[in-house]
């Protein structure tokens, strides 16, 4: 089995070629004459619905809406049909249609949500064939709505990345970080897209919170692996965030106050031509606690976004989106001293995108983006010669064309041209760093979606990239996904592919990360994914997904923690001090493997919603100059993980159990629990201490004691477990909803070990080592209120 995995790149290529040749046999089969196309919208706000199922009842053929809500059913014979459109949480739409010869029928569908607010008693009908939804969904993709994100109890307020940490296959390193490790990969192997634009460091407060405002989000797609050829540039995952287009029917608002921040989101129609949406969030500790308590640093963060959507005509849609975030820390160690040790640190993201979606012909849909992204950080130490400017930006032009060739064959062509500039400038009294680089990435991809019959679905793709750096690199990455409807209620899926990444991130203590890229010292990283999945629709609107995966990594780069000893330069400043302008010495190169099994049991509707997940994982890295080149588990390797997220609508729980119709009272309570269990995290422990001086003449220095570590990550910390709780009281009144809430993170105050702290003392000539466990977050209660209108 393991030998087979070693030959996986060849295997992937072989499967790709076979699949590719197979569907070409079907090219001549398209004979139908009519085409049905259109958009699927939410009737309440006019937002496009992504992934809705569109069916012709009589022919049992159909399609699903794309990211713009657009669908096409091509080559339909002229006749009378029943068109069915369904979407999770919405009433199924049904319409009788008549097609005449060569007709192109445009049908825009407006779906109504299942729960009707005006009515006191509503019936939640299972109108969705869950198994069809699962079948259409790509392998290893999990979709989350903002409601689902906001329902998971978190540290102080809801957070996208922390919610992702409760999904199987996604783990954090500690409570103090919102960074995500997907199926053994590192955070720099995740591609974050906001409205099609790359976001480089999506972190506030040194990683404690993510930069994504939950209230601004319309939909989140998380690809944990095996993603299609339309995505590239990262080895492990894609987190594709689509922000609200804006309500096209009514003015809508939402405001929230938590212990951390104030948050407001507004949406409004722009006449009949489109809509506008905007959000703003800001922390207020700097204006409150910091003015009273000296030890609270003068710190704030803010983020916001604006998105405008325009229906230019029936065939053309345009959206313009901007996102910005800013963190500002003005730290003074001793506020009573004018020249106290202190620093100013400011960093942030800015992204912008213009997206034009057009129906080029009844069977061809085009999607084009012009995007820009910038991350910057400036650090200035007040009493010490230490300054840093860090910047990365890109301007990207990309496009994708969907060609709905026949009812069983669809093609997608795409291109991407990315111009990336990065610079890092550091000035200290001992050295200077001045790195400024410009890179270009050209990508082309082609995907075919072939349905040989209603039971099979084969997606074959290829992505070719050319990376223009100090040294040029090229890669061709084949991808393939096969789906099979095993029974009326179960699916089998398989996906494989090669993935290439040219960007590397340098994580740093306290300072925000710096991005570098493949160059003359470090080539690109590659990974092969191999995923086998099983899906089953279960009673009570529940679903089960089981996935097995194997990943192998080649040329991955880990930040070299002893890089100070390895950096080198031949460039000097005028005072003969070093001028560093190369990445040499920054990383340890290596290979790795990840193997895992994930089970996800999910329920998205009813009085009890949420998911229960178990995952087994085994990741091994083998890095040069670390652990004498012997493989070791990285710190994020968690063998067993259990996540249970439950939300309970207390008003309807009895109705759910007794099978009675649901009620929608004016006032109701909702309860949330989130349980997390991780088996022990690998850790390198100190094996011993030894007495040694920094300099030959430091004999007698009582602090001259050093720690020597054990083999790398040889030990495991005790298991991690946490139970979080939330309680929300919803008051509905004349279109307004007021929701005060209480959240408790780590309800039972379990002391989960983060790391071990050491202190050496010499008393009466005797050395004592004090060893103490440093725990993660204790019980953290927080309150807040949300208001919607």
């Amino acid at each position, binding site marked *: 089995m393991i030998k087979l995995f070693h030959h996986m790149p060849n295997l992937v290529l072989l499967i790709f070629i076979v699949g590719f040749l197979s569907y070409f046999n079907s090219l001549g089969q398209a004979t139908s004459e009519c085409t049905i196309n259109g958009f699927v919208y939410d009737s309440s706000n006019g937002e496009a619905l992504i992934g809705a199922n569109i069916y012709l009842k009589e022919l049992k053929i159909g399609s699903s809406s794309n990211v713009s809500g657009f669908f096409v059913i091509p080559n339909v014979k002229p006749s009378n049909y029943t068109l069915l459109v369904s979407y999770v949480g919405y009433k199924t739409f049904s319409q009788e249609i008549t097609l005449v010869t060569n007709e192109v029928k445009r049908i825009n569908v407006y779906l109504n949500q299942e729960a009707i607010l005006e009515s006191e008693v509503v019936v939640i009908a299972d109108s969705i064939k869950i198994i069809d939804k699962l079948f259409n969904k790509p392998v290893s993709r999990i979709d989350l709505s903002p409601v689902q994100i906001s329902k998971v109890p978190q540290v102080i307020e809801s957070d996208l990345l922390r919610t992702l940490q409760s999904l199987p296959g996604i783990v954090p390193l500690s409570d103090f970080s919102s960074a995500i490790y997907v199926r053994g990969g590192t955070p720099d192997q995740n591609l974050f897209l906001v409205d099609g634009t790359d976001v480089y460091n999506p972190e506030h407060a040194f990683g404690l919170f993510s930069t994504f405002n939950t209230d601004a989000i319309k939909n989140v797609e998380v690809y944990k692996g095996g993603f299609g050829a339309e995505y590239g540039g990262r080895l492990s995952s894609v987190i594709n965030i689509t922000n609200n287009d804006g309500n096209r029917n009514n003015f809508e608002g939402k405001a929230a106050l938590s212990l951390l921040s104030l948050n407001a989101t507004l949406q409004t129609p722009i006449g009949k031509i489109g809509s506008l949406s905007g959000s703003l969030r800001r922390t207020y500790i700097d204006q409150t606690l910091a003015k009273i308590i000296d030890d609270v640093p003068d710190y704030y963060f803010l983020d916001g976004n604006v998105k405008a959507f325009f229906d230019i005509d029936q065939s053309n849609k345009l959206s313009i989106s901007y996102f910005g975030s800013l963190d500002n820390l003005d730290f003074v160690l001793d506020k009573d001293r004018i020249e106290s040790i202190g620093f100013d640190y400011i960093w942030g993201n800015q992204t912008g995108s213009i997206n034009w979606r057009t129906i080029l012909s009844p069977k061809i849909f085009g999607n084009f983006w012009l995007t820009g992204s910038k991350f910057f950080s400036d650090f200035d130490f007040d009493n010490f010669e230490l300054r840093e400017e860090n910047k990365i930006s890109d301007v990207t032009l990309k496009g994708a064309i969907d060609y709905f060739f026949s009812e069983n064959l669809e093609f997608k062509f795409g291109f991407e041209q990315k111009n990336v500039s990065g610079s890092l400038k550091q000035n200290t009294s001992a050295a200077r760093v001045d790195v400024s680089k410009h890179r270009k990435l050209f990508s082309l991809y082609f995907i075919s979606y072939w349905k040989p019959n209603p039971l099979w679905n084969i997606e074959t793709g290829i992505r070719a990239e050319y990376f223009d750096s100090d040294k040029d690199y090229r890669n061709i990455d084949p991808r393939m996904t096969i789906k099979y409807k095993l029974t009326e209620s179960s699916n089998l899926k398989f996906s494989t592919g090669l993935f290439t990444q040219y960007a590397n991130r340098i994580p740093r203590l306290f300072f925000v990360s710096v991005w570098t890229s493949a160059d003359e010292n470090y080539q690109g990283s590659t990974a092969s994914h191999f995923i086998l999945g099983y899906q089953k629709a279960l009673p009570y609107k529940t679903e089960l997904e089981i996935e097995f995966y194997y990943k192998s990594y080649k040329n991955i780069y880990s930040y070299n923690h002893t890089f100070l000893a390895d950096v080198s330069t031949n460039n000097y400043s005028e005072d*003969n001090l070093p001028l560093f302008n190369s990445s040499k010495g920054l990383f340890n190169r290596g290979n790795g493997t990840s193997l895992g099994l994930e089970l996800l049991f999910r329920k998205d509707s009813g009085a009890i919603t949420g998911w229960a997940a178990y995952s087994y994982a085994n990741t091994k890295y083998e890095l040069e100059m670390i652990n004498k080149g012997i493989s070791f588990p990285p710190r994020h390797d968690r063998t067993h993980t259990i996540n249970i997220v439950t939300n309970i609508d207390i008003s309807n729980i009895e109705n759910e159990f007794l099978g009675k119709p649901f009620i929608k009272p004016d006032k109701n309570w909702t309860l949330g629990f989130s349980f997390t269990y991780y088996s022990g995290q690998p850790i390198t422990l100190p094996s011993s201490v030894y007495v040694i001086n920094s300099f030959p003449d430091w004999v007698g220095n009582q602090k001259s004691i050093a720690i020597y570590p054990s083999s790398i990550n040889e030990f495991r910390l005790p298991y991690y477990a946490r139970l979080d709780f939330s309680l929300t009281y919803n008051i509905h009144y004349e279109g307004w909803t007021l929701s005060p809430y209480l959240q408790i993170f780590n309800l039972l105050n379990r002391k989960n070990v983060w790391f071990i702290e050491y202190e050496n003392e010499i008393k009466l000539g005797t050395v004592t080592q004090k060893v103490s466990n440093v725990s993660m977050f204790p019980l953290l209660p927080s309150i807040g209120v949300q208001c919607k209108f």
Partner: protein
Amino acid sequence: MQILINMNFLKRFYLFLFLPLLFVLFSCGETVVEIGQNTYNPKIVIEGYLLPGNKVSNIRISRNIPLNTYIDPKDVILSDANVKIIDLQNNKEYSLKYNPAKFSFEYVGNDLKIDHNNSYKLIVSAVIDSKQLTASSITKVPAKGFKLLTGDSILDSLKYREMNSQGDMKNFNFSFAPSPGTSFYGFSFIALDADTSSFIFNNAYVNVTMKDLRERFDNFKFRARWLQNVNSYSDKISLKLEWLEIWFYSRYRAIIYAGDENFRLFFLTFKTVQEFDGNFHEPRINIQGDGIGIFGSAIADTVYFKVLK
């Protein structure tokens, strides 16, 4: 029928109650990590430097100590170790003897000369916890040329954070001629008159209490700076000493070391083995076998300066 529905309801309800109890069971309490002998691996600790023109002395050979134990530093010295040095120019071997007065090994003869650009190998064997261990390391002495340029330096004495007539801060400044091929320079500063009465409590940067001072006294007394990757073929290199390094009104001794590769790797990595997520990594130590520490070489130059009230 109603009874059946109620039974069904109760079954689900009990399951519903059971799960939170299970969560509670796992989610409370405290676990600790025990560290002791299970992580311990005995090593020979070498701390020795060769200085050109000087006799081989002060080679300290000791053992590492398990964590969370109480051991007198004097007990860790391996006075019975077999220590020898080989002059790699002629492969001649010299045995070192233990000097109990200095708790270190030295070569007592006069026939071993440490010279610039020459390489020497240290071999140590010792028994620790009934295990026979051996360690060795090679150092190459830096080339001749390193010298403190007192004429170009600002030394002697300065008042604490003294200003010049333009209102700019004056700083001690160390200028030196580098050793060709040696790009690492370590600066050792020791406050010779350091005590609680000479400490600058009224410093410009941070409030230090008497308790803090007593606990971290040596951190204030012994200060270190370094330069690395400098242009070693230039005429002059300078280091400005920031006032942040000065914590006593005192005479200071500064020794500047032009260190070899072993010195550089050890100095830059031996203390910073804990990462920001609390995990540890290996230091870069150029010792083969069962040893840790430093066997290096350096050219040293000494200067004194004074910080006045």
